[in-house]
């Protein structure tokens, strides 16, 4: 039911009369292809033309030259009103109509398209549920009675009302506090997993770009496309000094946020279960390069580490011998979070556990560093890193 279309920029240029400051927001020969169903984030400093580029898609701004295709259709050849009704549009200030209820707001485009009342109501309910707002509570409220985060969700619901193949989002989460922003980002990613729309998303925040984008287009002032690629490509191989500076000196760390623990070959710890023979465990521990013993309960859940010097020469192992603990990681934990947890706990290894809390393996800081070194995508310029 849900459809998506590719969006193509072909040599799109927008110049404004005058030069200098008046040229802020200009776009210079922008060519991009965003495949159907992907999220492309346009990111850059203010005045780089990212919002201009977005608004040229629904023709709130007309390009000076070049063309933009949705699917295979040139947007300039379409009736502008019809075009806009077929594109979802979300802006930072949301722009909900204050004199209409949430339900009416969400049904704006269906109403323009002439849907009857009952169909509009049903659609509004469905969409409010989709964005996590209970229709019974929210449909008849006015926007003034909503929090910033709720308004933003209604804005997304409204944009999706007529099931458009393309969604334009202009700094949609720029006006909410960081906690709400992160929640909205995650909700949008969940939503996108189900809907698979083609989304053009504008932000000035590189972290948001990396998090939200399947593809990231970095624009620099003057409207030049500085780099276009996956978040990982941009972080691993910035195409220019500008991109390198823009993504930040901590780009290596940011890359770690893109990968998860399950990307690593986990290290098997030396383990023993309570009640095991101490001497045998001691022998096994010393044979390992990492001579610490991880004590597990009968369900294989970690109890703690036993240092070699604390291992008794005989008898059985019990819980009192475990003196240190490591942070627990999951397979879905990002490498950045994993590293942060290791630093925080001041230990060398974290224990990866499964859903039931049973130990699966170990992650060390060295393993994370090695991943960063080896997983770096080949530099298209061929300058630095050869594949190993």
């Amino acid at each position, binding site marked *: 039911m849900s459809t998506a279309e590719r969006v193509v920029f072909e040599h799109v240029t927008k110049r404004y009369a005058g030069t200098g400051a008046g040229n802020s927001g200009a776009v210079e020969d922008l060519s991009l292809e965003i495949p159907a169903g992907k999220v492309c984030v346009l990111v850059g400093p203010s005045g780089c033309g990212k919002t201009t580029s977005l608004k040229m898609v*629904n023709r709130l701004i007309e390009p000076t030259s070049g063309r933009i295709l949705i699917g295979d259709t040139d947007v300039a050849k379409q009736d502008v009103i*019809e075009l806009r009704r077929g594109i979802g*549009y979300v*802006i930072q200030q*949301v722009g909900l109509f*204050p004199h209409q209820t949430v339900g009416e707001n969400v049904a704006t485009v269906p109403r*323009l398209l002439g849907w009857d009342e009952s169909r509009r109501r049903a659609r509004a309910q469905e969409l409010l549920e989709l964005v996590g707002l209970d229709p019974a509570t929210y449909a008849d409220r006015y926007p003034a009675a909503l929090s910033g985060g709720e308004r933003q969700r209604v804005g997304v619901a409204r944009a999706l009302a007529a099931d458009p193949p393309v969604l334009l989002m202009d700094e949609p989460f720029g006006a909410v506090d960081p906690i709400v922003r992160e929640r909205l980002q995650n909700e949008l990613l969940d939503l996108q997993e189900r809907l698979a729309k083609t989304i053009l998303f504008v932000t000035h925040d590189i972290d948001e770009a990396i998090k939200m984008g399947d593809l990231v287009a970095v624009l620099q002032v003057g409207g030049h496309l500085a780099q276009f690629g996956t978040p990982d490509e941009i972080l691993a191989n910035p195409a220019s000094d500008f991109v390198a500076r823009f993504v930040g000196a901590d780009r290596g760390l940011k890359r770690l946020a893109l990968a998860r623990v399950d990307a690593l070959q986990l290290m098997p710890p030396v383990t023993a279960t309570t009640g095991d023979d101490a001497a045998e465990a001691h022998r096994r521990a010393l044979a390992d390069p990492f001579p610490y013993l991880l004590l597990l309960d009968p369900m294989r859940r970690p109890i703690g580490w036993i240092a070699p010097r604390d291992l008794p020469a005989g008898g059985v192992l019990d819980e009192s011998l475990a003196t240190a603990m490591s942070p627990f990681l999951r397979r879905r934990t990002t490498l950045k979070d994993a590293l942060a947890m290791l630093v925080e706990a001041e230990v060398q290894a974290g224990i990866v556990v499964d859903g039931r809390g049973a130990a699966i393996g170990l992650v060390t800081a060295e393993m994370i560093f090695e991943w960063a070194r080896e997983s770096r995508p080949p530099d298209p310029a061929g300058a630095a890193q050869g594949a190993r």
Partner: protein
Amino acid sequence: MDLVSAVVTWFADPAHWTGQNGVPYRLFQHVGISLVSVLIAATIALPLGLYIGHTRRGQALAVNLANVGRAIPSLAAIAIVVPFTQMLDPTLGFNLYPTVIAMIVLAVPPILVNAYAGVAGVDADLVESARGMGLTERQVLARVEIPVAIPVIVGGIRSASVQVIATATLGAIYGLGALGGFIVEGVAQNDNGRLFAGVVLVALLALLAEGALALVERRLAAPVVARGS
């Protein structure tokens, strides 16, 4: 004799409640002139104000027109048009038309300025999101700008109405009765009861109009404000 009792005595006289010079007839005249003047003024000023507010074209023209309108004293406006309207109709052209025209001149600026400022003042993001969703220019105006600006627009009509009701009394100088008649006659006959009865009636009518339109204004703004937190 003390003023209050003079006014009360005047009102108590049944002779003042009948005939062409009685309170009901003149009240009816006054309401009629005010209503017609405001309606004609609104017919001129509302479309113009909404257009200018929506397109932002001719803003300077609107402001200047409004200032000129405000600068013309109503009495002068009546006097200026008398020679012309008399050519149309010797009687009505002397008493009724000049008053109505002067009242229109008086009422246009507040209605125009409020309509223009109300629409132009609608949050630009709101208008852009409406446009971005595919509302036509007409729909943007009708479904977004006017509903959002309606309290301001009605506010212009309200202040125009109050000014017209108060100022329409001037017509009496040129022989149009209405409620101004009591004031002009009161001054001429040195009859304070009559004079202040006229003042009280005009003031009450103005307050009534003010109150009624304020209520309309509040009702129209209700959904946004009342449920806001």
